[in-house]
């Protein structure tokens, strides 16, 4: 099987799971318990937090980690629990976890604004800054790496500029598709940053919200007061340790993985039949995501065809009459014939150049065969 849908989820790392086994075995204790075993569990979580902060160059004196159940929960807490009211701004390229929160804010009568995208899926910074100059913004959420096109937003620079205009803005970024995939140091003006474990070979049901200590944040889940009262519920000890181990594996080879996936991406991009495919991902996009469109074909049909060859790829959205097109790709300014044929390829360090070679051949052949049938 060739698995090119790693932006959806990745295969949990066997070694990361193995190393964390102890937390499902003898070290199973509740981290809140006062006996020795509980303390050991609490320490295990503490060390995971320290490591995660270290990976993005954030100091433990200035930042803290709140473990959550997923990236979506992190996004929800950041958006609903940091700023109570005011003017909320995001862009049209956000994952649904952010987009739907903004829809909800709007329903609750809160003022929101969605900034337009550039054709590659990155945010139109000019429009954002103009808005910030013109109006008093209270909260901004900008995705780090667009999950549908792979476009990278320079969130550090955007945050710096915004705070220069208005130092009171709270800045959040969804870093789910960036963390563990590209070199990045958390900028001094980023207040909140969402992560997810299963996108980097961790487990589903495990995420984190990085938070500046001085940033006010209310809980989304109330209860026993775990995670400094910010996220109640007994900690997912095993999931957290697998997250840490998986992150270690990613960060130990970060540069190497980056180059490797870049090679795979470039190979595929260059090998695509240009008569059929157009590349939607921009030149500066993440090497982990390559979004293409086969004009006049349907992405879902291509996806199913590849399935018969044991190749798994993603497509932007469900191929149905309702909500047929990807909201994000549409916001990049593409027309229906392009939107119909969107296929998203997303890679992981486990992918090989041999897989890319086989893929390109089958992808081109399948698409041209389908094209012949569809356009008799």
């Amino acid at each position, binding site marked *: 099987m060739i698995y090119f849908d790693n932006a959806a989820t990745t295969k949990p790392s066997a070694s990361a799971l193995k190393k964390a086994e102890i937390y499902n075995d003898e070290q199973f204790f509740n981290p809140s318990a006062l006996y020795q075993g509980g303390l050991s569990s609490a320490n295990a979580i503490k060390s995971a937090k320290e490591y995660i902060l270290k990976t993005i160059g954030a100091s433990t004196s200035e930042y803290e980690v709140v473990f959550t159940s997923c990236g979506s929960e992190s996004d929800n807490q950041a958006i609903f629990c940091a700023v109570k009211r005011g003017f909320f701004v995001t862009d049209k390229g956000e994952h649904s976890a952010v987009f739907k929160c903004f829809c909800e804010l709007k329903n609750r009568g809160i003022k929101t604004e969605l900034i337009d995208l550039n054709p590659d899926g990155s945010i139109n910074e000019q429009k954002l800054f103009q808005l910030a100059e013109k109006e008093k913004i209270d909260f901004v959420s900008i995705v780090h790496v667009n999950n549908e096109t792979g476009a990278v937003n320079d969130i550090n620079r955007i945050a710096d500029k915004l705070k220069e205009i208005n130092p009171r803005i709270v800045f959040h970024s969804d870093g789910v598709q960036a963390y563990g995939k590209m070199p990045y140091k958390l900028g001094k003006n980023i207040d909140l940053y969402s992560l997810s474990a299963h996108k980097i070979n961790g487990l589903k049901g495990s995420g984190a919200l990085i938070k500046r200590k001085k940033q006010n944040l209310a809980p989304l889940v109330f209860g026993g007061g775990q995670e400094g009262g910010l996220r109640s519920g007994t900690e997912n000890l095993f999931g957290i340790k697998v997250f840490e181990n998986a992150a270690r594996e990613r960060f130990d080879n970060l540069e190497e993985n980056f180059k490797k996936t870049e090679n795979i991406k470039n190979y595929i991009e260059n090998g695509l039949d240009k008569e059929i495919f157009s590349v939607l991902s921009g030149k500066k996009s993440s090497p982990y995501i390559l979004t293409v469109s086969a004009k006049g074909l*349907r992405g*879902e*049909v*291509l*996806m*199913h*065809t590849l*399935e*018969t060859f044991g190749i798994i790829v993603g497509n932007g959205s*469900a*191929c*149905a*009459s*309702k*909500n047929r097109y990807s909201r994000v790709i549409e916001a990049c300014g593409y027309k229906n014939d392009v939107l119909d044929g969107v296929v998203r390829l997303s890679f992981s360090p486990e992918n090989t150049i041999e897989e890319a070679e086989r893929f390109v051949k089958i992808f081109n052949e399948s698409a041209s065969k389908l094209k012949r*049938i*569809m356009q*008799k």
Partner: protein
Amino acid sequence: MKKAIIIRYCEIHLKGKNRGYFEKMLKENIKRSLKNINCTFAAMHSRYLIEDFSEEDLPIIEEKLHKIAGIHTYSIALVVENDFEKIFEACSSLCNGKHGTFRVTANRADKTFTPNSMECARLLGGRLLEVYGDKIKVDVVTPSFTVFVDIREDGKTFVYTDVVHCMSGMPVGSAGRGLLLISGGIDSPVAGYMMCKRGMKLDCLHFHSFPYTGEAAKQKVVDLTEKLGEYNGGINLYVVSFTHIQEVIHENCPEEFMITLMRRFMMRIAERLSYKIGAQAIVTGESLGQVASQTIESITSSNSVVTMPVLRPLIAFDKIDIIDISRKIATYETSILPYEDCCTVFLPKFPAIKPDLKRVLKAESNLDVDGLIEEAMKNIEKISL
């Protein structure tokens, strides 16, 4: 007090000398449906009786009864000896907590029992008023509830207040076998349900167009068929790969006839499969004029390739009525899941709404019809649900 469920049928009453055949079939269907439940099941004169079940199983039994075609109504009754005091106790426990107007209707099959039925009803009513007079009062013409007392010859009396309506219709299997074309939309499961209700035992046929439609679309059909199977006493789903036929039509025939020609192929395959599995009719969810392929001209065109009867129980139904039934049989939520079905692939921009048979035949002459059907028949997947 012991409980029993009294089950009644309706249309079987109209049958003459072959009434026994229908009664037996309904009895077998009920027995099969209850086979995993600990209870006794017996046939009485013109009705059936379930007894000796545990209270926890009651909701499960009730749910099952609602899915057996041929059952008109049922009542959950208290069972007591043929003894006036005990009968009164049963009546009293049923009236406890009730408000409004009531009457007592007694039926005395055991003619040795005294008082007689009229007297019995009068006495019971009087006693009930003595106890609950502040909450209920008598209205023999339009009561808000009726206490039924059925005094049987075998020494048992059934007392109940509620009569619950079920599917009615005729027992499944009593009206032959049919093959339902099921697409994954709202209509076809409803059409299947309607035929089950009239006693037809169904098998289903689905046309799958992988890779143009995905596994999720097929799973949706499996789920719908399974739901339908609850009314059918289990069901078989046959899945035919339709992809090649669609591609060939698309390649060789005018675009406007895509759907018309597809329907003709579907009907032919359905007829072939029907003969193979012993089905006597093809059932479709067509509703007159609902879409381009369901105009009278389109139906004529697709009907003309088969000799077997094609039953279209929804032909005169409005969409809104079909949706109502699909909600009732709980297929609606599955039907509206957004997956492509085989009809929406290669959908022409302007399909022929009134296809002229001569032109259709001309378009079809470009195709090796028999060869394509032969090939499709070779790859039929059977899923038993």
